[in-house]
């Protein structure tokens, strides 16, 4: 189309320009288009949906466990299955639901919130999803084929070593973790680069929305936490497959090395779920309190502090291993210190509500539930951070109570708030408020009924990961109460699923901005077009939609025939260059399959480490050597070298 150049220089795009943008950014129809998709929104949607599916599976596993524990000496499952159930539940919730869903939400929201057209490295992004999917399928195929892992979600050696866990169960676990690590790492890199380089002009760092800050901090945490578990699981795989002795105490290895490496990752991991969740909260509260957030700078500092401190806490999971007292004191101090940034956040949120005029729609309800549950779970966290108390509470249901109050309270609740809040943007339809309120109340009551009694069970001596207990223990009644609570949660989750399906078909149309929000994404249509913004907006303040001037400045002069994105400077977001993104491609899927062959095959034969990379080679060639054909004159970058 030759008239485009003229249009561009003339300024705003007309209907024809819009149509061309549609063509350029469309990933193509049908199954082929679906498999080749690189639009961050398409990838993120399937990512979130897959993660949610794993949440349901993990939840069903939890229900089976709860029924088994409902009364003493119950015979629903045998110990072999029970041990797989809590391992699957923990692994699913942490590796297949928690981390992925947070990254997936970020993959959807961050490019929109910073005002760009796609995430940086879109094919890598698609690759990340496929690898994650393969990991999830591996874990569940293993489980169905009676090769489900049974080492617990932190999989301590030597129990999970070659001697005490022969068979393939643990290998399935280790490779699942490898896949999810790869997926998380690539997502982290993409998100960091998107935030640093692809922000809309004017969105200097001090105008970065709090959620984007939270994602940025989280992505850095991923960058430094994941290598640790990658290394640990690699060492474990080597110990099991080729006879190394990293963890074998009889040959100069050390089981505690596993614990250090695992928790150096494991503690930050819980913050990988928690930090973006606080980002949701910081976005939602001002909208529903109908005023700007109180303490923006303090909140940013709190996020950064939490990110840093999260690397200084890992030993608080190892207080009973008999490490030197002085060292333990340091980790207690660090664990208590992290309560301060959390406190700052909680207080700023309450202050914002205090000074605003809260509107009690479902997103805010989930946020309020979050504040209550997180405060409770955080305080039990502070309790177990005390070494002497933890020596009693460790590995009991007290810790199970803590971890669910924070995981559900401080991660799942904000996530549900985010679902309710952004669902209209993503689908163009509202979720039902009436069902939403039922969803919230059942969930809130259910969580407390399920997990509050576990504090007492822990103090009464009920250790975790036990498939049954004797009647004389007296643990029966409270366990029964907890089981009832778990079904309340399940009912609530079922309502949510029903709400989603109902709304997809006949939810009220949302319009661009149903809540009166302030971040950029509410300025485009719902659902957003493939290119997100017809014209990249120019940002004028911390609350772009609340603070924009009537002339609503935009960027012009970008091509419409190629997937061009605007690069801006890191600190001030000054326009710096125009960069061409690749289009749809099957290479990510092929590369992911090759990686899949490598690691899944590696469980059975070392030849996989020859075959897999051999398959990877053509996939990567395809990745890097695809020449896209475009109409119109060549751009600068397309000229022959």
């Amino acid at each position, binding site marked *: 189309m030759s008239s485009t150049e003229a249009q561009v220089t003339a300024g705003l795009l007309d209907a024809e320009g819009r149509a061309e943008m549609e063509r350029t950014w469309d990933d193509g129809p049908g199954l082929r288009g679906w498999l080749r998709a690189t639009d961050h929104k398409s990838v993120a949607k399937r990512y979130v949906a897959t993660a949610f599916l794993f949440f349901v599976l993990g939840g069903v596993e939890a229900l089976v466990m709860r029924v088994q524990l409902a009364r003493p000496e119950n015979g629903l499952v045998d110990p*072999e299955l029970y041990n797989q159930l809590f391992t699957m539940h923990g692994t699913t919730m942490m590796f297949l639901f928690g981390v992925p869903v947070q990254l997936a939400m970020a993959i959807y929201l961050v490019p929109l919130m910073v005002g760009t057209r796609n995430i940086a490295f879109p094919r890598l992004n698609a690759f990340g999803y496929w690898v994650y999917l393969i990991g999830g399928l591996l874990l569940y195929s293993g489980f169905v084929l009676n090769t489900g892992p049974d080492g617990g979600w932190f999989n301590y050696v030597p129990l999970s070593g070659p001697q005490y866990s022969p068979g393939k169960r643990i290998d399935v676990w280790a490779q699942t973790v490898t896949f999810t690590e790869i997926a998380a790492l690539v997502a982290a890199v993409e998100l960091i680069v998107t935030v640093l380089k692809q922000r809309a002009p004017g969105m200097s760092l001090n105008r970065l929305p709090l959620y984007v800050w939270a994602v940025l901090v989280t992505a850095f945490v991923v960058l430094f936490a994941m290598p640790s578990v990658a290394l640990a699981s690699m060492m474990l795989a080597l110990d099991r497959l080729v006879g190394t002795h990293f963890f074998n105490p009889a040959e100069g290895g050390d089981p505690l090395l596993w614990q250090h490496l695992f928790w150096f990752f494991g503690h930050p991991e819980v913050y990988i779920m928690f930090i973006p969740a606080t980002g949701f909260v910081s976005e939602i509260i001002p909208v529903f309190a109908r005023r700007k957030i109180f303490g923006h700078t303090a909140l940013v500092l709190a996020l950064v502090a939490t990110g840093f401190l999260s690397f200084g806490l890992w030993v608080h999971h190892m207080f009973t291993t008999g490490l030197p007292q002085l060292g333990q004191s340091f980790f207690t101090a660090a664990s208590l210190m992290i309560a301060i940034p959390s406190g700052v956040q909680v207080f700023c949120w309450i202050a914002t509500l205090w000074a605003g005029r809260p509107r009690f729609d479902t997103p805010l309800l989930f946020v309020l539930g979050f504040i209550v549950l997180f405060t409770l779970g955080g305080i039990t966290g502070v309790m177990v951070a005390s*070494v002497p108390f933890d*020596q*009693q509470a460790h590995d009991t249901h007290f810790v199970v109570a803590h971890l669910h109050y924070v995981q559900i309270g401080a991660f799942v609740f904000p996530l549900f708030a985010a679902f309710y809040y952004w669902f209209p943007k993503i689908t163009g339809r509202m979720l039902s408020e009436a069902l939403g309120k039922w969803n919230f109340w059942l969930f809130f009551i259910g969580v407390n009924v399920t997990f509050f009694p576990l504090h007492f069970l822990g103090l009464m001596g009920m250790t975790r990961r036990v498939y049954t207990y004797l009647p*004389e223990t007296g643990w029966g009644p409270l366990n029964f109460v907890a089981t009832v609570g778990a079904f309340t949660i399940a009912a609530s989750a079922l309502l949510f699923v029903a709400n989603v399906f109902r709304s997809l078909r006949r939810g009220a149309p949302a319009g661009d901005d149903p809540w009166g929000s302030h971040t950029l994404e509410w300025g485009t249509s719902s659902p957003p077009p493939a290119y997100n913004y017809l014209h990249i907006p120019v940002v004028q303040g911390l609350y772009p939609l609340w603070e924009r001037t009537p002339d609503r400045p935009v960027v012009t002069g970008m091509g419409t025939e190629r997937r061009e994105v605007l690069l801006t400077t890191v600190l001030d977001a000054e326009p710096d260059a125009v960069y061409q993104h690749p289009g749809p491609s099957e290479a990510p899927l092929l590369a992911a399959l090759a990686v899949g062959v490598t690691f899944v095959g590696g469980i059975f034969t070392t030849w996989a480490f020859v075959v897999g990379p051999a398959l990877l080679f053509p996939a990567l060639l395809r990745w890097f050597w695809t020449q896209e054909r475009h109409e119109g004159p060549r751009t600068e970058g397309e000229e022959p070298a």
Partner: protein
Amino acid sequence: MSAATRRTWPAIPVAILLAACDREFSATPPAGPQAERISGLTGYLAWTGTAVFLAVVAFLLYALWRGRRRAENAAGPAAERTLTLWVGGAVAVTTLILAVTLVLNFQTGRALAEFAEPDALVIRVTGHQWWWQVDYQDPDYSRRFTTANEIHIPVGRRVRVEVQSRDVIHSFWAPNLHGKVDLIPGYTATTYLRADRPGVYHGRCAEYCGMQHARMDFRVIAEPPEKFAAWYEGQLKSATPPADSVRQAGRQVFLSKGCALCHTVRGTPAGSRVGPDLTHLATRRTIAAGTLPNTRGHLGGWVSDPQKIKPGAKMPPNQLAPNELHALLGYLESLK
């Protein structure tokens, strides 16, 4: 507030909820100085935590209640200043509470570590999948002996417990006496206990250790020193040779049916250490690491098919003719 009430603080909610249940299993009440110190700290943590939680919720509710009735936002520099003061104050209070908590933590930790008293006794506990080997140490080798799953200690005296494992990680936990300590292969850890009241205290393995982690309990039995001494002397002895013909036949079954491949009965050729030492089996309250009361019926069920009772346990089922089983049980019951 008296020391006694302080000690029972954390027990209050538990006690209200569970007045009826068996106290033997409860982490509260403490029965020795170590558990007592921890319990004191627990009380502080639980009550401060409750207070902080209630304060936060109260502020939250008040904020919502106010905001709901307001027509205009509280905005402007004055409002911001008020908010800053409140938030700043809350952060200051938080920091203060945390600082106090930290100090109390250190104090308790130090007190636990500096529990300096002469050792009345040194016991070495070895974790196995899924039972406890207990070795009483003594400089005089003839005064050492081995037992399983039941630890007797004299009341009012400090006992040193050295824990270790040769297979996977376990954790030694007798909540009424002290916090837990992990048994990590390649390491030996030490913990000090003292029971101030006679009683039977329940203990369990707290670290997930495989299939039967749930059934890896033990008992700590605190007795007055004389009673303890008598028990000790009894344990030092070898098994008394069976007096009647049934028991003699039982011993024959024991020695010929493979039991001796794994078990020790001192005074007989059976000397293997794969499974628990059975020399004084009949003096123990439970079998299979706290899974079953030590009665003839249960013993019979266990010996015939351990897998049914404790699936995965490292003891195979034994097909014995009824008369053989009868004789064997008679023999086992005689191991006093």
